[in-house]
């Protein structure tokens, strides 16, 4: 049964990717991207990767198509027909590469085997001892926020840097920090969409907070909560326009929060340095090691959540401001 679901989902993924090649026009492509994101999220659930599925559902099916749509609104939705001679060579290249890679897979351990090398190294230690050492049931959170907190700090910094890069690239000369004023020409909205979304938004934000603070016990954590929270705010922005959402959360506040999240994460690590311990050693936070882990993980997950949500909202603001400027 599990295999059947697996095969069905993967076949639908391939079908979506093939239609992406066949389809002309960018808006249709973006809708297919969204479907692709939703399908891969479902696939991750069947692979027991519930935390990943959460993230992919919010990013792949929600935020990513939205950013693509906003870009298409800026650059136009028409896609040119490729010239004939441009098809043969790429086709040859991907066929050869694909065949070589498939030959390569034959050396891989069979799917699902419990004695695969990937499952032999540190994974058993995480599974067997994290319950005792960290004291929280979700092993993914233990690895992310404690055993591998260095890597996660690096990734949060990459996200933060990407947010800054988007602001810099899309910066409008002379209009930095000012909120575009297009309140006078609000488009008429669909009543059903408006009312339903208005009811949904508080629950989305509440759910994001639940995912944030329940991440130690169930699937969830800062990354997932950050994207879900940002989706709620972005939905509000889409419905009521950029000026309204900028009144709720002004852009300078979001930008400051993005930096504050990274600071909260890094300072939790520096706290250990001050006591003469290694960077990000949580044992400085409390005398009981398990309580210390709990406090440390909660603090850095909060930092991650705040940064991820702020960066994604900032990216949305940057694109939306650009768009309303272009429409003027």
């Amino acid at each position: 049964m599990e295999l059947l679901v697996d095969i069905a989902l993967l076949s639908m993924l391939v079908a979506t990717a093939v239609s992406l090649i066949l389809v002309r026009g960018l808006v249709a492509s973006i809708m297919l991207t969204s479907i692709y994101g939703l399908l891969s999220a479902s696939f991750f659930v069947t692979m027991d990767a519930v935390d990943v599925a959460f993230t992919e559902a919010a990013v792949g099916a929600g935020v990513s198509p939205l950013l693509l749509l906003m870009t298409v609104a800026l650059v136009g939705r028409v896609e040119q027909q490729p010239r004939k001679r441009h098809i043969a060579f790429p086709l040859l290249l991907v066929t050869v590469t694909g065949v070589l890679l498939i030959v390569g897979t034959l050396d891989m351990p069979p799917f699902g085997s419990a004695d695969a090398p990937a499952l032999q190294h540190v994974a058993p230690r995480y599974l067997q001892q994290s319950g005792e050492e960290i004291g929280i049931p979700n092993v993914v959170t233990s690895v992310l926020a404690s055993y591998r907190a260095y890597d996660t700090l690096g990734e949060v910094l990459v996200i933060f840097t990407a947010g800054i890069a988007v602001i810099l690239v899309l910066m409008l000369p002379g209009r930095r920090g000012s909120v575009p004023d297009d309140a006078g020409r609000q488009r008429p909205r669909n009543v059903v969409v408006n009312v339903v979304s208005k009811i949904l938004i508080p629950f989305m934000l509440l759910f994001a907070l639940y995912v944030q603070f329940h991440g130690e016990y169930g699937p969830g954590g800062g990354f997932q909560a950050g994207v879900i929270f940002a989706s709620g705010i972005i939905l509000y922005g889409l419905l009521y326009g950029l000026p309204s959402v900028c009144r709720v959360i002004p852009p300078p506040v979001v930008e400051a929060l993005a930096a504050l999240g990274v600071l909260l994460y890094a300072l939790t690590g520096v706290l250990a340095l001050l006591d003469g311990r290694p960077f990000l050693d949580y044992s400085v936070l409390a005398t009981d090691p398990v309580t210390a882990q709990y406090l440390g993980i909660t603090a850095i997950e909060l930092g991650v959540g705040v940064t991820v949500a702020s960066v994604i909202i900032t990216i949305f603001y940057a694109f939306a401001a650009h768009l309303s400027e272009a429409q003027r």
Partner: protein
Amino acid sequence: MDIASYFNYWIVIVLMMLGFYIVIARGNLVKKLIGLNIFQTSVFILYISAGKVSDGAAPILTEGVSVYSNPLPHVLILTAIVVGIATTAVGLALVARIHEAYGTVEESQILEQDNAC
């Protein structure tokens, strides 16, 4: 050889090549980024598939469960997805600026304009 034991990996390669094809065969920069997205997600699927253990449970410690799927790929991919959307956003922002500078996002027209001057 059991087909089911390699099915996931082969699908990953098919998806990866479909994404790769879009990246190299299409001239539209937005479409190229969509292709890159497909390629990226195929890598996610590869990692998550490699972490799956038959009859394993999601790696959330529960009484009475002894076999769990590998949590390590989950951690890597969970962060990679969010990093991926942030970097895609940078790419899209660059596309928007390219459109402002050249008036087009078709690769051939951009190259023509570059070669003209």
